[in-house]
């Protein structure tokens, strides 16, 4: 990651009109969405595994990866807003479908945690949350990848614009792909920390309630 960060700031980039040096944001902004997608896909897998095996560990994994996925999604949204402000001229526009649908996808996932907090029984909470997580995960490809590509958008690959692969200079890819791998690895590590903390909290609560009985 250190090498990726150093290269992201120090490597010479082609001078693209309007974007100028901000083409370097490709190494930061885009990997956020890749990491988020991988984590949400993980949430889908853990939710299915919970429903098939009734193992609460899977529910805790689903919760941890989803929580971390939202963190990376928020990073993607905020970095995108800053980038948009100085290249498109506005922090936010309701005319840009990818921007709005990504925010909508994140809101769907925020509702996952609201749903979780409304149940006290762990088994019931896990079951309802798993079902909801499966629904939420199925919306992500459509909201972030499919629908924005069908509508006019300033993002690459959308209707009227060349695809990402057509506009990315080869030298940018040398840093972009390692950045994607690095940020995904970082996100998985953070999700794992979150999972371990959740397990520890539950273990401590059980130990405490056991000692009180």
């Amino acid at each position, binding site marked *: 990651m250190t090498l990726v*960060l150093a290269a*992201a*700031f120090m490597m010479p980039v082609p*001078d*693209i*009109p*309007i*974007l*100028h*040096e*901000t083409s*370097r*944001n490709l190494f*930061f*902004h885009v990997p*956020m969405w890749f990491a988020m997608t991988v984590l949400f896909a993980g949430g889908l897998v853990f939710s299915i595994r919970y429903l098939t095996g009734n193992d609460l560990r899977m529910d805790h994994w689903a919760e941890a990866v989803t929580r971390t996925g939202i*963190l990376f999604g*928020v*990073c993607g949204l*905020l*970095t995108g807003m*800053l*980038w948009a402000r*100085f*290249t*498109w*001229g*506005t*922090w*936010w*526009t309701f*005319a*840009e479908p990818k921007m709005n649908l990504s925010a909508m996808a994140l809101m769907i996932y925020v509702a996952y945690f609201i749903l979780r907090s409304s149940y006290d029984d762990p088994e019931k909470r896990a079951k309802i949350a798993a079902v909801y997580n499966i629904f939420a995960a199925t919306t992500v490809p459509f909201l972030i990848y499919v629908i924005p590509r069908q*509508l*006019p*958008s*300033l993002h*690459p690959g959308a*209707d*009227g*614009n*060349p695809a990402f692969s*057509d*506009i990315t200079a080869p030298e940018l890819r040398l840093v972009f792909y390692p950045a994607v791998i690095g940020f995904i690895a*970082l996100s998985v590590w*953070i999700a794992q*920390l*979150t999972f371990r*903390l959740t397990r*520890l*909290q539950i273990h*401590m609560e059980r130990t*405490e309630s056991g000692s009180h009985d």
Partner: protein
Amino acid sequence: MNIILFTGTILLAETILQTGALLQTGTILLVETMLPVGAILSPGIIQLTETILQAGISTSEAGSSFSAFMYSHNLIFVVLGVSLIIWLLLAVYLIRLDKKLSRLEKKR
């Protein structure tokens, strides 16, 4: 070739320059860059770009020192801002995890 991405601004750019609207630095740069490029545009892109630029114009802060700072040095400070947002958010999240862990350790 990357210019194709923003060709939707040409028609709007011409209109804006004709009407002499007060624009922020970024929009002026964008307009100046796009004008020499001739292209056939899809109606959707034109409409979208108009909306986006209108929003940009309405939120423009003429003479804002923050904007001037961010636009300086070929927008490199935007990249710095983007990376700082990421690291700050991740750092805050990790510090919160660490605090929760410390609380658990104290309980023990």
